[in-house]
């Protein structure tokens, strides 16, 4: 398990991290979300010693992180970059070897991963000959080539087309299922919701919400109500008790209400013929908005 405990970090007067703590468990995926500049990248860099926290600890399996631990970790930084003149398979194998693989294993793993990520035909191309999206796949392969026990990915989905994003999701799910502890940051909350069992929400350097996503939803004080009426009007919203927030859609409206309200009670309050009615726990986006408000 990766444990981050009470990390503090200041850059001059800017406090980047304030007592930031959360855990990443083997075999599970944690979505690390927060507004721009909230401290996500700084936190991830702390794991690799690229940033030294002013206070707090980062531990792996109960101990401080050693050089050997780092070799078994996989990292995809926000600042993407590889050797542009180097051939794709050589490049991935090189990073495999830096992570301690022997030559033959590194070559096989590089070729396997690249093929798995759809680059089987491009193994001997130079990186610069690949499209941006394909370069990103190579970047992912370098993070995966040594079968890391911990995967830390900073915005892995940014800039990916839907197909590439699907491949990325599949790979991450598969790694987590194989026992890897996975943490990634993203602004695509629906993706995080789809993929992750756990989330941590950071705002202004502090963790404002964390835990198992399903439990967080259950424990939330709000419920989401989606209603489409036969007439299509949304004036029923005004008749509901304890409305916390309203989103108007072209088909109808979605409303956040107090979790204490029961569905039949709300149904009665609407008082109009209904085409569809959905009463559910809040989405991650709802939790996020509430947490960073």
């Amino acid at each position, binding site marked *: 398990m990766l444990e981050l405990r009470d990390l503090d970090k200041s850059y001059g007067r800017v406090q980047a991290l304030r007592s930031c703590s959360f855990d990443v468990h083997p075999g599970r995926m944690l979505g690390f979300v927060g507004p721009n500049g909230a401290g996500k990248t700084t936190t991830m860099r702390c794991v690799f010693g690229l940033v030294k926290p002013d206070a*707090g600890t980062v531990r792996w399996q109960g101990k401080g992180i050693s050089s050997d631990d780092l070799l078994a970790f996989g990292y995809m930084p926000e*600042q993407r970059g590889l050797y542009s003149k180097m051939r794709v398979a050589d490049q991935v194998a090189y990073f495999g070897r830096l992570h301690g693989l022997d030559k033959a294993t590194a070559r096989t793993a590089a070729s396997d991963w690249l093929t798995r990520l759809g680059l089987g035909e491009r193994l001997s191309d130079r990186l610069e000959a690949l499209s941006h999206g394909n370069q990103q796949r190579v970047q992912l392969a370098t993070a995966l080539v040594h079968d890391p026990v911990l995967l830390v990915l900073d915005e892995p989905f940014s800039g990916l087309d839907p197909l590439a994003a699907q491949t990325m999701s599949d790979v991450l799910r598969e790694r987590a299922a194989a026992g890897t502890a996975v943490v990634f940051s993203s602004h695509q909350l629906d993706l995080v919701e789809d993929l992750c069992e756990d989330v941590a929400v950071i705002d202004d350097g502090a963790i404002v919400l964390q835990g198992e996503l399903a439990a967080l939803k259950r424990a939330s004080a709000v419920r989401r109500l989606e209603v489409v009426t036969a007439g299509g009007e949304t004036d029923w919203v005004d008749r509901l008790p304890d409305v916390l927030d309203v989103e108007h859609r072209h088909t109808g409206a979605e409303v956040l209400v107090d979790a204490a309200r029961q569905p039949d009670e709300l149904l009665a309050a609407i008082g109009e013929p209904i085409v569809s009615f959905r009463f559910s726990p809040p989405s991650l986006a709802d939790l996020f908005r509430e947490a960073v408000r």
Partner: protein
Amino acid sequence: MSAWRAIGLVWWREIVTRGTSKAFLIASGLTLLLLTGVFIGPRLIPDEPEELKVGHVGAASEPIVATALVFAQFEDDVMLEALAFDTLEAAEMALEAGDIEALLVDDRELVTLGQGSFSNNRSASILQEAAAANAIEELVSDTGMAPEEVVGLLTSRPLEPRTLSGFDADDPIREIVAYAGLMLMYAAILMYGTWTLSGVTEEKANRVVEILISTVKPWHLLAGKVGGIGSLALVQFGLTVAYGLFLAGATGAVEIADIPVDSAGMVLLWFVLGFTIYAVMFAVVGSLVSRTEDAQSASTPVTIAAVASFMVTFVALNDPDGLTAQIATFVPFTAPYVVPVRFSLDAIAWWEVAASVVVTLVASVLLIRLAGRIYRGALLSYGARLKLRDAWASGTERRPT
């Protein structure tokens, strides 16, 4: 993973990717081609002897001109023609017009145009030599000595030479090797320093640095890079020099067998050491900048150090046993220049050589560690060039425990 393995992997990557790059192969090929041209080219142009014309006035000039014509016959590259003039005015007009290069007036005066020129006036030199030879011949004619005997005496060396070192004092080959090595090293430092410089900024420029430094220590990366780039540079440079020596030997310009082994070995050792310490210096400044464009200006202090050390060396070597030379032996930047030359001049003790090797090696290792620390400090500050002090201060970032 051990430091050596990490350094070795980076080293090998540098050699493979750079060594097989088109730029490297083309540059190496062109250098060898150019060298071939330098040695073979002049042989393709036929050796035309220089045509010299001298004028002379007055009967007393005749014997000197006769001797000069004989002298000229012994010179392969000269053809001398003598023109007799009736009057001084006519002769001076011919000199003015460029028909002749020197004018002998009787046996007392040698007239030339007197305008500055890069080359000596060979015509005038031959006439002077001829006049001197005639004067000596006249002097010794009463003693009954044959002219050949007199010439033999003048060029003989009646004293037996002996040196305490056992080296032949008349044979400058050792100094030539040392000074040639010094010049080559100076050239190599300035030529290949920029390789190291831009190489060190490569990872920052293409932003691969963050994944690298999450795996290997910065000094491993830098040591591997300096080693890899340095090895390639040395191979390219070594090939060039070896090929040059081969051509020089084949064309008869240099007798390879005459090159003293100990002196050449010392030059080679210090070539590698000197190259290393300066490459490391370039790595230190390279680690301060994040863009290749900034690297050149950042490297100015190192270039100045290389040039200044080179000049200090010549001061020191005027007195190879003196204090300056002795101090320069133990300064890592000047030692690579000074030690091989002092060795060739037999002006250095073995312990001094050994100690300066150690000093230079230790300095190289310390500097690469320093570069690693600066590199880590400057690492995540992409963009502006970092001040040394700031890089040092933030270089204390370590792995969290």
